[in-house]
């Protein structure tokens, strides 16, 4: 009997995948339905504690925290998805070309990447936002630019490995052009490498967006976002509404935990393959 060559996925992929899937489903439902209107205020419920009607309690304007968390997670995830879409496609494209062709451009590009990755991403994001001025659109562009080097690097180093493989030589012998070889032959073979990178990148994008909104340079103040809610909730820690900060914070932790488990698990699965 032939043994299955692909090793079984590990527990981290399952746990992370389930957590992430549940959050995505809740957020998707939240686009159409939330238990309460996230921006409906109710003075009587100001800082009301968690109850059956409001499972996470209410904020300082009497708005239902759970509905706002769902909406805020939606904002955060939308930004993260866009950041990764832009960052990964540009990064993979550049990495694939520089890795395949090499030469001076490759050398220069990798030096630039080295320089960018030497700086902590929050620091760079703040600098770029300072230049562009804070807004939701600028946050997406700024983070997308910052995520390009990580994808470009991984793609490049894998491309260098793959291009000396026999199947690439064969494709060349059969007369395939460089672009066909890169995008039709090599890239599909790199999916197991790129998948964990994309998941980890997504995780970092969520964290970066939350941090920027927490600092007040992310999405605009009237839109719920997890980072901004957490920074607002801080004022009520001392005045007796700790559940506000804790429920928003736990939502962020759960989101990041799911994604990081998924990324870590996928990486281990790739190593064991």
């Amino acid at each position, binding site marked *: 009997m032939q043994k299955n060559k692909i090793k079984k996925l590990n527990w981290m992929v399952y746990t992370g995948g389930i957590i992430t899937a549940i959050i995505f489903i809740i957020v998707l439902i939240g686009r159409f339905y939330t238990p309460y209107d996230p921006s409906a205020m109710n003075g009587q419920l100001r800082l009301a504690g968690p109850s059956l009607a409001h499972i996470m309690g209410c904020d300082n304007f009497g708005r239902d925290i759970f509905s706002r968390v769902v909406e805020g997670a939606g904002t955060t995830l939308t930004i993260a998805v866009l950041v990764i879409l832009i960052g990964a496609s540009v990064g993979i494209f550049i990495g694939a070309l520089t890795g395949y062709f090499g030469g001076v451009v490759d050398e220069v590009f990798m030096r630039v990447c080295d*320089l960018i990755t*030497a700086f902590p991403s929050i*620091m760079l994001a703040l*600098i770029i936002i300072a230049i*562009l001025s804070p807004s939701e659109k600028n946050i997406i562009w700024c983070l997308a630019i910052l995520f390009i080097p990580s994808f470009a690097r991984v793609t490049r180093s894998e491309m260098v490995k793959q291009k000396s493989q026999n199947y690439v030589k064969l494709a060349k012998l059969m007369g395939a052009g460089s672009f066909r070889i890169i995008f039709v032959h090599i890239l599909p073979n790199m999916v197991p490498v790129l998948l964990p990178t994309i998941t980890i990148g997504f995780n970092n994008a969520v964290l970066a967006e939350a941090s920027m909104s927490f*600092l007040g340079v992310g999405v605009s103040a009237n839109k719920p976002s997890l980072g901004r809610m957490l920074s607002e909730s801080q004022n009520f820690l*001392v005045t007796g509404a700790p559940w506000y900060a804790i429920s928003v914070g736990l939502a962020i932790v759960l989101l990041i935990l799911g994604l*990081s*488990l998924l990324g870590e698990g996928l990486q281990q699965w790739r190593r064991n393959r």
Partner: protein
Amino acid sequence: MKYFLKKLITLIVTLIIISFLAFCAFQLIGDPIASMLGTNATPEAVAELKESLGFNRPILVRYFEWLTNFVKGDFGTSYSYNLPVFGMVMPKLGVTVFLTIIAFLLTVVVSIPLGALAARKENGIFDRLILIIDQVVMAIPPFFIGILLTCIFGVALRLFTPGLFVSFKENPSGFIGYMIFPAISIAIPRIAMTVKMFRSSIISQMQKDYIRTAYARGANSKRALKEHAIKNAIIPVISFLAVSLSEMLASCIVIEQIFSVPGIGRLLVSSIGTRDFTVVLAIVMILASWVVIVNFIADIIYQVIDPRIRFN
């Protein structure tokens, strides 16, 4: 020596490139005239102010002037406070550097023994426990750790008053007692990462031939670990820790907001809000120099403890 000089030249060139890029970027967008005079300014007033601020001269001339002043310690004047930037930034820089260094020491002191203990028995109970805690802790963003610590130690146990910063001059012991909590918030995620890295580094060293030789010569596992594996396993961790020094400085930007620590991070965020670009530029240059210099020191230490690097 040749290696040292090569790295030193790279350091200086990198700093010059960064300073030029940053200066140009903030000059292009950071036009202070509009914010200083408002939208109803007459063209004559704008021209006059431009003249007096020296905005009419070529950018390269202005850059070299700014750079020489910067190196001499003249960071320019803040647009919004009309104060010398140097005097605004320096006391705050001291607070932030202090915070970073405490967090760094905490990370080193806690993570090295924990990593070694976890690696001693791979897949043992302690090892598994550490790995699970690590994975969870790494998912907690530093700012939420800060909030949790405020909740537990500030609100519930009353070990410090949240938001009430104690300055070093007023009360040195109170200052340290206050700063320890932001430092812990910065250190915890780093500790998790360092433990994980050190553990896997030791485990991969323990499978090498020289460890087998050590066993063959009669060493027990404790001795093989302590006297042979750790020395080699710690090399990648040292460079990771050096990079952590930059990451920790970046974490300060966020953590200072939570604990109301009057450091450089808070000044940076508020200056971005008021678009006070002389302050932003000065802080950006300080942060960038910190990162570049820390990386330089890491390269040198790396080369001293692992001479193979020099010959590669």
